[in-house]
């Protein structure tokens, strides 16, 4: 088991190091992609995923009102984070992580497989 874990762990770490080096080799392009389309996609997915995990509140609507109202603020926060984080690999990991996690949350609901609110 320990050997198996090591055999999986080493290639994963190597891949991550390789990806971090790739990002650091092109810092300007990476920053543009992160703060531009990356931040936009992350913000849209964060907003889209909020109905899935936010509590509906007393009136049963907070989970759909908050993402609509807060959408501009969500983008601003993600954009500024992508712009300012001194570590590009870390910023890339955070933005990509946001995209991945929220896409996973959104996928079943967006395809109609999961009804979050009933009409």
């Amino acid at each position, binding site marked *: 088991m320990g050997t198996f874990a090591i055999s999986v762990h080493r290639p994963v770490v190597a891949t991550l190091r390789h990806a971090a080096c790739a990002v650091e080799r092109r810092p300007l392009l990476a920053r543009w992609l992160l703060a531009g389309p990356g931040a936009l996609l992350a913000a849209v997915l964060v*907003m889209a995923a909020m*109905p899935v995990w936010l509590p509906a509140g007393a009136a049963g609507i*907070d989970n*759909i009102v*908050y993402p609509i109202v807060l959408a501009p*603020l969500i983008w*601003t926060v993600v954009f*500024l984070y992508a712009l300012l984080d001194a570590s590009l690999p870390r910023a890339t990991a955070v933005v990509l992580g946001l995209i991945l996690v929220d896409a996973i949350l959104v996928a079943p609901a967006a395809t109609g497989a999961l009804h*979050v609110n009933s*009409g």
Partner: protein
Amino acid sequence: MIPISQPQMKRLTAVHGWSGVILGLLLFTVVITGTVAVFGDDIARWSTGSSTQRGIDKPIDGIVRNLAERLPLFYLDDIAVWKTDAGELMAFFHSHAENPATGRPDEYGAMFRIDPESGEVLDRNEGFMWKEPWAWDPSALRHFLVDLHVQLYLPDPWGLIVTGILGLLMMAAAVSGFLMHRHMIRDLFVAERPGARLVSARDRHVLASSWSLPFAVILAFTGSFFSFASTVSFPIVAQVAFGGDNEAMARTLFEPPVVEDTRRVRPADLDAIRAKALDKVGGPLTFISIHHYGRADARIHVWHSAADGRLGFTQTVFDGAAGTFLEVKPQVGNKPSMGNTIRTLMWPLHVGDFAGLVSKAVWGALGATTCFVILSGLRRWVRRREEEPLWRGFGRALTVTALGLPIAMLASAWAFFLALPAADPFFWTPFGFVAGALACAGLGLAVRDDGKLRALFWRILAWACLLLPLLRLAAGGTSWAEALARNHGEVLSIDLLLLAAGGLMWWARDRRRAPTVVPQRPTMEPAE
């Protein structure tokens, strides 16, 4: 203020500067038209010559009942009743049908313009009437100026998306500017260094932006919300939360649940309901919406505008058959909630109408300050690069936009009044704007000297303001004597403001002559 490393400061400066350069002139357009739109209702009353408040304060039950009796049941699905800025009562009896022009459901019905005193029907029109502003908006000028602000007069939904993006840009610029401040408190009291140097321009920009920073963030945030809510955010959230059923989401947010009962009954007395609504919440009542008029499951929604300590709109709901009070309904949802509280704050924070003229004046002043922040920032950018022809050209575009846009807006007002007697003001008002904008662009190309161009623009602005009240009177507008007699405050006050502004601009025209920009050639060094 906030510790920022040098690389971070470089990135912030780049974002702050370049976002301003690329979209700053468009953002200026949105902000200056927004500053004017704060006074949209006042402009509407001035342009129609009436200062009637829009509260529904006369009996309407008999009027609505008489009209309803003559209409097919299809039209009684929904009835909207309100009063225009010209003091006329409007009633729109409608249901939903697919609009062939858009392929989407829309409100189709009969719209009546009514004399509120006599109940006489002044005009009747039928169709998808919300798409025909000439039938229900007495002021083409206000309609155009507000539309220019909301969606840059571009087609739906692209105009809203563009203004939403500009709102995000303003957020980014405001927050990056805040982070770039090393001494925020000191910058609130920075005195402009003398000598018209580049640092003096920086001082002015920093001072104005420091004081207007919270306002800029609030306006950018609320503005982006309004632009993106219906075009982007609502459909995305509806897809996730309701499987794409936009109507189901709209019902959840806006309609209280009602058990269907299609039996025909005598409708409740609307005037009794008005009195109860005033008693419950207070006035003014600006909009009444009746669902399923004449049915046992009818509901009447009464909208109260901000007043008496209420920040935003309040909605009271009544049983449309029995006339009994049911609830004070939140704007969204059917129970009070934090989501509703936040949503309710967005409108008054954006338009500044929560405390009447006082709050509108503050919002207008801050809007003008934000215009100065945008222009001073762009001007500073150009001055740092004035040796390069590209940026000198951009500086010329900046002058033409900064002074030409107000001229174009005044030109739209001129076109409105010229068209009022005998032509369609809804066509000629935007035409006037375009003509004014093109004329200013033409002058920008024709007049080579920056100082002369500015002086010319100031003269045109001055005369356009000074003569506009006279044009309004010549087009059959309310005279000052009549305005005083009938207490039409907006007519008098806006005329006087225009005269004062025109006089001030005339006085200031030669004092604002900019130094002529002469590109500096590098000094030739003696050959070694």
